[in-house]
């Protein structure tokens, strides 16, 4: 068997006792139709799809999107990851998480507690409070957080099995705005499962995240808002696979100076050959 094949095999990862092969978590919001959402989920080959809860008056029906999500997840065996989008306090988030667990019948919760309306930056204090409570209540907490190392450590200490730091503000599509902080997270938390959540706009951003050593990416708008969402879902899948394979293969270290790749012995071949 080729060594190359060994890299492709046995690359599963874990969330608790759940084994996942796909490193692409996909959001379900903003698609032009339920059918496009369905096809995007299939093209992404994702095993985790995010959903939400909304007050009934505000939601006013969902035009069949949730039904199609449930249907395609039945077919593929993928899992739901409900979120607490819109929450501004730990108390709110904890209550909504309990509702989501009842409704979607899963202990998984993507914990979002926003602290700033303009950037939708997570509030680290409320987030930690909510995470602590929800872990006590038996949830598997996926905290949407910033790239602050100390906050991330506290969330792990609270019992979160993984972290989901942002790459950039939600929906901005700016990519990884602070590679230094993300690299630091990876280096300082070598055993933690790290998922980039939010801010990814292009497949190259996702590939970069995987190359940096992040375990997976979660994105929504970059696929849903593409001119061809299904094709973009496929593009992200390929980029994520490429980034992950590159990480495992070992990306070369950058050099400050040119290093000749062709071993010509340091002399131009034709120098002095002319009469």
């Amino acid at each position: 068997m080729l060594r190359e094949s060994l890299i492709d095999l046995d690359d599963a990862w874990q969330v608790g006792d759940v084994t996942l092969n796909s490193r692409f978590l996909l959001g379900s919001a903003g698609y032009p139709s339920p059918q496009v959402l369905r096809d995007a989920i299939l093209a992404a080959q994702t095993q985790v799809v995010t959903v939400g809860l909304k007050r009934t008056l505000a939601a006013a029906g969902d035009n069949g999107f949730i039904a199609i999500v449930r249907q395609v997840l039945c077919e593929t065996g993928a899992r739901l990851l409900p979120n607490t989008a819109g929450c501004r306090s730990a108390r709110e988030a904890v209550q909504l998480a309990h509702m989501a667990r009842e409704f979607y019948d899963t202990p998984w919760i993507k914990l979002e507690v926003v602290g700033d309306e303009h950037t939708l930056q997570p509030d680290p204090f409320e987030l930690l409070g909510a995470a602590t409570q929800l872990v006590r209540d038996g949830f598997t907490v996926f905290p949407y957080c910033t790239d602050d190392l100390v906050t991330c450590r506290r969330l792990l200490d609270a019992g979160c099995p993984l972290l989901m730091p942002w790459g950039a503000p939600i929906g901005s599509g700016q990519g990884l705005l602070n590679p230094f902080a993300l690299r630091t997270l990876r280096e300082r938390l070598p055993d933690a499962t790290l998922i980039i959540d939010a801010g990814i706009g292009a497949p190259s951003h996702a590939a970069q995240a995987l190359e940096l050593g992040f375990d997976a990416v979660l994105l929504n708008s970059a696929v849903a808002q593409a001119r061809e969402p299904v094709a973009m879902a496929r593009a992200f899948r390929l980029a994520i696979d490429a980034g992950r394979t590159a990480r495992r293969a070992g990306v070369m270290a950058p050099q400050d100076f040119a290093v000749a790749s062709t071993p010509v012995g340091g002399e131009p071949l034709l120098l002095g050959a002319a009469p």
Partner: protein
Amino acid sequence: MRAVVEITVTLDGQPHSLPVGTTLACLVALLGHPPAGVSTALNGVFVPRGQRDDRVLAESDAVLLFQPIVGG
């Protein structure tokens, strides 16, 4: 003195009149939702489906109903 026959609760932010003695489970049914079709909160606290029958609504209670939506 006339007996109170109705109460007014806040339902998803809007005033809503109900007969005295209405439970949360009754309200969900009156609104046409199957029990598993919504999640419920009373005065900001989640009420599990199995406890809705025990929660008799009182004047000025705030009821929120939640339903699934797509999300990122």
